[in-house]
């Protein structure tokens, strides 16, 4: 591989060398995360938003799709704390239900991408050979496109729908996970304990998944959080370009998109401002959690 890859592999390996303290990792990570004020605040915000979205019916009596033409564009009031939109739907309700879908897209895609990437990375990295060569080439091809360009092409090919979007994000997201998992495998498979396990006659795949992979759990979590944030933002961008989830589905991107209408932007800020704030807060909180995780799983930083 190129010098660049080796360089990156080394960077990744360094970021993730919590392996020496395996048995302590959990407590230590949690402890270190708690020390990081920003990531604690992030965690709290994240959990609040997530909880409210998941249990939306507990927090709002309205139906997110119920149109009410007698109550359009109402300002925030006791009945509608974030007011109503252009067809009289409760904005607060739409933020919560929209959050379900947006977070679902972000988290679901990140999870699928991770699953594909890590599985391939572990197998290919441990086994090497032709399989590794092929998967590596595919990942190179996918990574050769600027992400937005690839996503735009794929959305147009598959058509706009919720599941297509998750599929596309997963498809464009797995190569980076693959690379990370693979580099872990490459650097760990020559370790002595692995050799010892081999000598005991334990099956390759068992060694790879059960004994090596857990060492990479830290960076994998970091990557999931950061990818989730990225995909949520991508969904919003695609909505803006008119290529996101169909507009009748409430997602954060689709709710925000009405701000394109300058009248709404100026005179009905209750529609987009709270939504924008929630999205921004949520992304920030995820990023801080990711940062916290990264720092916490890095043994070179004192905990």
């Amino acid at each position, binding site marked *: 591989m*190129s*010098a*660049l890859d*080796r*360089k990156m592999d080394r*960077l990744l390996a360094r970021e993730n060398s919590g392996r020496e303290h395996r048995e302590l990792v959990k407590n230590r990570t949690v402890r270190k995360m708690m020390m990081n*004020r*920003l990531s604690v605040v992030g965690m709290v915000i994240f959990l609040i938003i997530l909880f409210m979205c998941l249990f939306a019916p507990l927090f709002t009596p309205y139906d997110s799709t119920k149109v009410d033409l007698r109550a359009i564009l109402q300002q925030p009031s006791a009945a509608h704390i974030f007011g109503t939109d252009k067809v009289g739907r409760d904005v607060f309700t739409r933020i919560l239900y929209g959050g379900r879908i947006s977070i679902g897209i972000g988290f679901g895609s990140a999870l699928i991408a991770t699953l594909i990437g890590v599985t391939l990375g572990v197998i290919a990295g441990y086994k090497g050979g032709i399989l590794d060569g092929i998967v590596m080439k595919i990942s*190179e*091809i996918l*990574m*050769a*496109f*600027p*992400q*937005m*360009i690839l996503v*735009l*092409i*794929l959305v*147009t*090919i598959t*058509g706009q729908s919720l599941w297509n979007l998750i599929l596309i994000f997963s498809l464009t997201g797995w190569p980076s996970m693959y690379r990370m998992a693979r580099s872990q495998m490459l650097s760990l498979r020559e370790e002595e304990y692995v050799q010892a396990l081999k000598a005991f006659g334990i099956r390759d795949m068992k060694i790879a998944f059960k004994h090596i992979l857990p060492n990479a759990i830290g960076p994998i979590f970091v990557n999931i959080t950061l990818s989730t*944030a990225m995909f949520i*933002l991508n969904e*919003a*961008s695609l909505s*803006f*370009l*008119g*290529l996101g989830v169909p507009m009748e589905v409430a997602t954060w*991107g689709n709710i*925000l998109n009405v*701000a*394109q209408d*300058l009248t709404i*932007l*100026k005179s009905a800020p209750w529609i*987009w401002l709270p939504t*924008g704030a929630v*999205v*921004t*807060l*949520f*992304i*920030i909180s995820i*990023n*801080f959690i990711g*940062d916290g995780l990264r720092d916490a799983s890095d043994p070179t930083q004192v905990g």
Partner: protein
Amino acid sequence: MASYITRKILSLIPMTLILSFMIYLGMDLMPGDAVDYLIPPDALSTMSQEQLEQMRESLGLNEPLVVRYVKWLGGLFHGNFGYSLQSGVPVSTLMKDYLPATLELTIAALLISSILGILLGVISAIRRGGALDQILSVFGMIGVAIPQFLLGLICIDIFALHMNVLPVGGRMAYQGQGFFQRLQYLIMPALVLGFSMTAGVMRYARSSMLDSMGKDYMKTARAKGIPEWRVNLVHGLRAALTPVVVLIGFRLPMLIGGAVVVEEVFQWPGIGTLFVKAVRSQNTPVVMMIGFFSVLLVLISSILVDILTAALDPRVKLS
């Protein structure tokens, strides 16, 4: 070094061939074709299938995929990048019109984000754990977290519509294309785009600065009584820059693909808007060309990063 670069460039050829065929295939898989976008949808209902078929035929859309691809590739070898299915303008002319606009915007944003990111990252590292560190982290994070188009629209509302100090969008002033007149148009989009890219650089700069601050030679320098700011600036910063440069190298491909949303918000006549329009109207030759260019840029920038890394870090050898 020379042989390394030649080898790398040679290896680009099969890669770009595969990629270009994939884009072509993708365009073919899209529902409908360019003819559906040449006629406004409301007018489509008044046209007969024969008329539409005739237009397809004359645009060469009825030939098999492989034939069309080979023709396109053949044209490429003769320096002919094809013609826009919409306007018949050579794609090379379109690129000539649109590419400078995008480069102008993205390079400005790259500069802003790099300078700002390194500066804030270093400050953050020096003040590690302090209030300033956290304020700066939050500031940088907002840039990443706020949807670009929302920030853009808010900026337009404030600076262009309320305060009336900057133009709402576009790239060039009518009857005034001097540097300063053009600069007005660049400020908002470049800042919005740059702001969103700052946090990444900042995070890298901060952590590599922290890294180098812990190094022995820094301690030695301090022990020698060199003032703290000098130690940080001269010794720390230099070492910290390496990974940052690598990161910026990785960002080069964003020069084409990264500005789509910002271009749309600010009516910036660049590659991004052209690409979105071409994808939506299935203007295959245009999509091919932009896809091709951006892929090439990714591959070239990865070589560039390799070379840079080798140049900056004596331990890395090109092979």
